[in-house]
C-alpha cells in the first residue's frame, strides 16, 4: 500500500513537472525566435535598409525601401476590403441576422478562415491577375483583404454581443431606432474590442507570403500606382533567404526582424487597446 502510494506520488510529481517543462519549452520558443532575429537582424539593420532600393544580384548593399512601402500599400488595400465587410457583416450577424442566413454566413466565414493562404492566392490570380493581365498591388491587397474578413467578422459579432442589454434597452426606450442605437450606443461601447480585432487581423495578414507570390509578385523598383507589381517584405524575405548570397541572408534577417517587430507591436497595441477599454464580459 505504502509503496503504491509512493509510486502514485512520484508519478504525480514527475507528470506535473513534465507539464511545467512543456509550457516552458513552448514559451521559450518565442524568446528564441526573438533573440535569434535580433542577433542576426540587428547587425544588418541600417539607414540604407529603410531608404534604398535593392541592388542588382551579387552586389552588396542596398535596402528594402520599396518593399516596406509595398507592404504598407498592400495592407491599406487589405483593410479597405476587410474592415468594411468584416465590421458590417459582424453587425449583421449580431444585430439583424435571421437564423438561416446567419448560419450560412457564419459557416462561410469559418470556411474562409480555414482556407489555406496559398489557395487564396490561386483565387486572386485567376480572378484578378488573369483578367486584368497584370500582377498588381490591387490583386495582392484583395487577397490579403479576403483573409482579414473572417477574423474581423467573428470578433465584431462577439464584441457587439458582449455589450450589455441594458444599454440597448435604455436607448430604445428613449425612442431611438434600432440602427441609431447600434451606431450611437452599441458600436461605441464595443469600439475598443472591434479596433483590437481589426489590428489583430492586420497583424495576421501582414506576414502572409503565399497569397502574394503570384498576385503582388515583386518589383525591383518603386511600384507606381496600384496596378503594377510591387515588392513586399514577406516575399523579399522568402526570395533572399533561399538565395546563396551572404549579403541577402543578412538583409533577410533584418527584414524578418522588422516584420516580426511590426507584427508583435501591433499585437501588443491591440491588447493594450482592449485592456484599457470598459470592462466587458466576453461571451
Amino acid at each position, binding site marked *: 500500500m505504502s509503496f503504491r502510494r509512493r509510486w502514485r*506520488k512520484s508519478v*504525480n510529481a514527475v507528470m*506535473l513537472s*513534465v*507539464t511545467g517543462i*512543456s*509550457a516552458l*519549452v*513552448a*514559451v521559450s520558443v*518565442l524568446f528564441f*525566435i526573438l533573440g*535569434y*532575429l535580433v542577433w542576426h537582424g540587428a547587425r544588418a539593420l541600417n539607414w540604407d535598409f529603410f531608404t534604398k532600393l535593392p541592388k542588382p544580384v551579387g552586389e552588396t548593399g542596398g535596402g528594402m525601401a520599396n518593399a516596406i512601402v509595398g507592404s504598407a500599400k498592400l495592407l491599406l488595400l487589405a483593410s479597405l476590403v476587410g474592415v468594411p*465587410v468584416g465590421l*458590417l*457583416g459582424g*453587425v*449583421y450577424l449580431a444585430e*439583424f441576422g*435571421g437564423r438561416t*442566413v446567419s448560419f450560412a*454566413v457564419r459557416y*462561410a*466565414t469559418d*470556411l474562409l478562415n*480555414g*482556407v*489555406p493562404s*496559398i*489557395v*487564396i492566392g*490561386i*483565387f486572386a490570380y*485567376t480572378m484578378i491577375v488573369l483578367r486584368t493581365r497584370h500582377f498588381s498591388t490591387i490583386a495582392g491587397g484583395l487577397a490579403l483583404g479576403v483573409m482579414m*474578413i473572417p477574423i474581423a*467578422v467573428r470578433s465584431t459579432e462577439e464584441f457587439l454581443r458582449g455589450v450589455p442589454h441594458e444599454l440597448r434597452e435604455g436607448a430604445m426606450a428613449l425612442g431611438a*431606432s434600432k*440602427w*441609431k442605437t*447600434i451606431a450611437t450606443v452599441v458600436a461605441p461601447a464595443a469600439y475598443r474590442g472591434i479596433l483590437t480585432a481589426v489590428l489583430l487581423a492586420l497583424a*495576421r495578414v501582414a*506576414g502572409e*507570403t*503565399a497569397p502574394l*507570390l503570384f498576385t503582388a509578385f515583386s518589383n525591383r523598383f518603386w511600384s507606381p500606382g496600384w496596378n503594377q507589381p510591387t515588392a513586399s517584405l*514577406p516575399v523579399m*524575405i*522568402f526570395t533572399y*533567404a*533561399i538565395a546563396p548570397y551572404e549579403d541577402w*541572408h543578412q538583409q533577410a*534577417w533584418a527584414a*524578418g526582424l522588422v*516584420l*516580426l517587430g511590426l*507584427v*508583435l507591436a501591433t*499585437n*501588443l497595441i491591440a491588447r493594450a487597446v482592449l485592456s484599457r477599454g470598459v470592462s466587458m464580459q466576453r461571451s
Partner: protein
Amino acid sequence: MAMERAGSGRGPRSRSLVRRLRSGDEIAHLVTFLFAGSILLIVGLLLNELWVNSALARHKFGWSFFFTRVWDPVFEQFGALPFIFGTLVTSALALLIAIPVGLGAAIFLAELAPPRISDALAFLLDLLAAVPSVIYGLIGIFTVVPLLREYVEPFLKATLGFLPLFQGPVYGVGFLAAGVVLAVMIVPFIISVSREVLLAVPREQREAALALGATRWEATWKAVVPFARAGIFGSIFLALARALGETMAVTMVIGNAPQIAASLFAPGYSIAAVIANEFTEATGDLYLHALIELGLVLFLLTFVLNGLARLLILLTARRGGAHA
C-alpha cells in the same frame, strides 16, 4: 422573422420599399445584409474558380489523380499522390511532436499555474501564434536544418537506424525538418484552444476526484482531461488543418522532391509547397489545372477538418455548460 425582412426588398410589398427604407432600420439591415452576403459570395466564387479552373485535370485524370505517383510536366502526367503523402506525413509528424508538448503545457496553464502566470504565459503563446510563417521558414533554413543534419539525424541513424524510418542519406531538409518546423508552429494553437477547453471544465469534476484521494495529476488526467476530451480533439484538428495548409515554412525546408520515401530523412513535397513553387510557371493549361486541382483538394481537406474541429469544441462547451 428576420429572414422575411431580409427579403423585403422583393415581392409584392416592394411598392412601399422606398418609404420603408427611409426608416433607417431597413437601410441598415439591407446594407449590413449585403456585406454579410458578400462573404457567401466570396466563398462561392472561390469554390467556383477552383472548380472551373481545374476542369481539364479532373476530366483527364479522374480519381486516378489521387493514386498516381508520377508528376511529370514534360509528358503531362500528373498524379497527386507524392504531394498528398508529403502533406500527410509532415502533418502527422508535427502532431506527434506537438500533441504531447501542447497538451502538457495546456494542462499546466489550466490546472496548475496560478491564474496570473497562466494568463501571462497564454499571452506570450498568442504572440508566438502570430509569428509569420515565412519567419519560421527563415529560422528553419538556417537553424533547424543544419541542426538536424549535423546532430539529430546522424544520432537517429546511429541509434534507430534499424528502422526504415531512419535510413538513407542525411540531407537536413526533408520530411523530418518540415515536421519539426510545423510542430513548433502548431503548438501554440493546441495550447490556447485546449487551455480554454480545460478551463471550461466544471470545478466539481476535479474536486470530486481530489476528495476521493486522487493525487493532483490523477485528478487532472482521469477526471478533467476525459471531460474535455472532445474539445482537445477539436484543438488538434484545428492544428492539423493549419499544418496541412501551411505553405511558406514547409516550402523552405521540405526539399521539394515529389517522391514517396519510407525514410523521414528523405526530401519530399507537400501540396501547398508544390503550388507555391510551380504555379507561376505551369507552362501548359493541363499543368496549371492540375495545380489548381491540388488547391481544391487542400481546400476540401481543411474544410472537413475545420468542420469536425468546431463541432467537437462546441460539444465540449455544451457539456460543460450543462453541468455548470
